[in-house]
């Protein structure tokens, strides 16, 4: 029995929660052959907490872990992690890096039926206790607007079709598999169409960018008036775009190409990447993403959008355009006119080709253009940092209204929001 269980859970399913600085460890784990990617938390075996988890995520993560079916375990991967990732979560397996994971020990802890993870964490209480009127708890409020046993039912709302149907508050929430971690979107759905987006919340804590911010670092150093090698800036841009493209392809149900892109992203082999980008920029992707979530250039200007999102709507916003080093290399910003999801994909893919090209020719050139992968890092009036992802968050609330579900998911994915970066000040 134990051998059978050991074999059965030999490649545990992971449900990711990405914290501060956790994107790269998670991407590394995705490539690992010992792990497989699940869908929701219910069927997952491991709750993978990658990076430093903000403390106010504790309640959400506790609830999330509780919904996981047995056997389950918390896998905490963060540099310099201590044993207990968050108070309230049972001790699982902690590692400071992906290579340092001892899989045998992990399996032992996962399959430990007497362990702390195999017991219920939270008290057995219904979310909304039932208050009936009668002695035996019977009677009470009706189904609409009251609180019957459990949760209330959705209320009715007028619909553009003049039908009085239900208006369902749904979260496209902080931990939706495939979308940026920590981004809470409160939607009100009618059927599978979004009536409006009520709330946009970035759950990452506001702070100044930490030292060693991964692929945003070259652009941040450029903003600090440092001369950064063009090769560094372009490599960072390439890595970011390729990671985004792989995640989008996972959402579009093409996991094979996504995995190959992640592999090629590790060592940036120019030839292999060009071939994969050719395959990605296909008619399939075009038909799947065209005419979804159109942002006109007027709207892009009004909402102060940044980077590839703005360039896909026809705005020629690129700080590299004014930089002498880039101008010497013959740089032209990549601009598309469509403003839909396909245009945003196309801009980023063309920028990948452009980066590969620039990497070949850049040599030892240095630049001061603070152009990150998602846009330019600007200074605010008070001397703070204005990140491109924070500016792009403005497109969510107006842009999501009226979209169908799959369009909404693709729209959020196409904005390429880095929630950790968006919280920087």
């Amino acid at each position, binding site marked *: 029995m134990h051998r059978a269980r050991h074999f059965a*859970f030999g*490649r545990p399913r992971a449900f990711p929660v990405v914290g501060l600085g956790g994107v790269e460890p998670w991407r590394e784990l995705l490539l690992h052959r010992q792990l497989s990617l699940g869908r929701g938390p219910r069927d997952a075996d491991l709750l993978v907490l990658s990076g430093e988890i903000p403390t106010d995520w504790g309640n959400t993560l506790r609830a999330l872990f509780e919904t996981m079916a047995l056997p389950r375990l918390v896998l905490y991967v963060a540099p310099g992690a201590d044993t207990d990732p968050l108070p309230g979560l049972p001790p699982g397996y902690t590692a400071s890096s992906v290579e340092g994971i001892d899989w045998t020990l992990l399996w032992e802890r996962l399959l430990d039926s007497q362990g702390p993870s195999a017991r219920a964490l939270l008290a057995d209480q219904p979310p909304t206790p039932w208050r009936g009127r009668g002695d035996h708890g019977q009677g009470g409020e009706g189904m609409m607007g009251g609180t019957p046993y459990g949760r209330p039912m959705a209320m009715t709302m007028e619909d553009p079709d003049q039908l009085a149907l239900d208006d369902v508050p749904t979260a496209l929430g902080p931990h939706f598999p495939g979308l940026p971690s920590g981004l809470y979107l409160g939607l009100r759905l009618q059927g599978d169409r979004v009536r409006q987006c009520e709330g946009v919340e970035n759950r990452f804590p506001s702070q100044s960018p930490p030292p060693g911010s991964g692929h945003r670092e070259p652009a941040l150093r450029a903003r600090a008036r440092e001369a950064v090698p063009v090769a560094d800036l372009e490599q960072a841009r390439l890595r970011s775009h390729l990671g985004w493209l792989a995640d989008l392809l996972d*959402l579009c149900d093409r996991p094979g190409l996504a995995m190959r892109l992640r592999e090629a992203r590790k060592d940036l082999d120019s030839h292999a990447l060009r071939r994969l980008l050719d395959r990605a920029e296909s008619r399939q992707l075009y038909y799947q993403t065209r005419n979804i979530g159109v942002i006109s250039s007027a709207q892009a200007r009004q909402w102060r959008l940044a980077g590839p999102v703005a360039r896909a709507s026809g705005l020629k916003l690129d700080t590299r355009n004014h930089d002498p080093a880039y101008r010497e290399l013959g740089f032209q910003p990549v601009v598309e006119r469509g403003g839909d999801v396909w245009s945003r994909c196309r801009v980023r893919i063309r920028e990948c080709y452009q980066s590969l090209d620039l990497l070949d020719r850049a040599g030892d050139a240095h630049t001061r253009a603070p152009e990150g992968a998602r846009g330019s890092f600007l200074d605010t009036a008070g001397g703070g940092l204005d990140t491109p992802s924070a500016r792009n968050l403005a497109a969510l609330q107006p842009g999501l209204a009226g979209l169908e579900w799959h369009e909404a998911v693709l729209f959020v994915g196409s904005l390429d929001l880095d929630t950790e970066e968006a919280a920087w000040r």
Partner: protein
Amino acid sequence: MNYGPVNWLAPPLALVLVILGVAWLAWVNRLAGDLARGRVSLETLMGPPRDMLRDLHKEFRLTERPDLALWLGAPLLLLTLTMAALTVLPLSPDWVGADSSVGVVFFTAMFALTLVAAYWAGWGPNSKYPLIAGYRFVGLMLAYEMPLAITVIAVALPAESLSVSSIVATQQAAYWNALTQPLGLVIYLLCALAVPFWGPFNVVNAPELAGGALVELSGAPKLLWRFGQYALLLTTSAFAVPLFFGGGAGPWWPAPVWSLVKILLVSGALVALGHGLGRLRLDRFMWWAWVVLIPLSLLNLFLIGLLILIWPGLAGK
């Protein structure tokens, strides 16, 4: 294989064949996925049994207020309908569960009822993402049901009968329907992918809905749901063999063996085709199905009608 009016040996035998067929499809699917990822290894071989054991050992966790009868009934119904449809599938003139004179109508009806199973899988768990997935699948079904039915009628036309065995007999006397109705074959294979919501039609287990019907499923019901989906894919592609590929016709080997080989080939090809095609957009597909696919299937019907009136030899006369 007929033992009087009721064929007692056929159901267990069919069940065993379905189990073997599903195992075959699980491996083909795994191989296709690993090829697409560029990661073929020993894990490709070990993967399907590992996943099966994992699902058996994993806990089945209820949601807060599910409709348990519908939720658990969904995979059971799927499997029941699939097996019922297999009653009229002839592996050879002798090897058939019960050859009905309206076999075509029967299995089309069984496939149409699988919609109910997919809807139950969406409604049962009382969770938002599966619900959306279930309703979207109903929309998809409206799109593909008509081309499927029309194409199957076009196949019945040369045989002058709605019995699947007569369709096979006609093909063996004349030409395979794959040759005389290539358009019908393509449409049928497309619908054979859509009925078990496979590949581009995967709106039920959708990644953009965090897994759709798979979000709240874990453990043995999840295994049964996936098993039912594979079994349905096996069945829809299995019917392509007597309808289009001449049933058990072939040299040297006996008819049942040929039937099984063809079934494995067709279903394996369809499973592999589901990879790397991305997802179709439901709204555009529904438009396309009604404005393009139905007229095409009607055109197919007209063509074959015309052809067999002009050349009765095509119908084995």
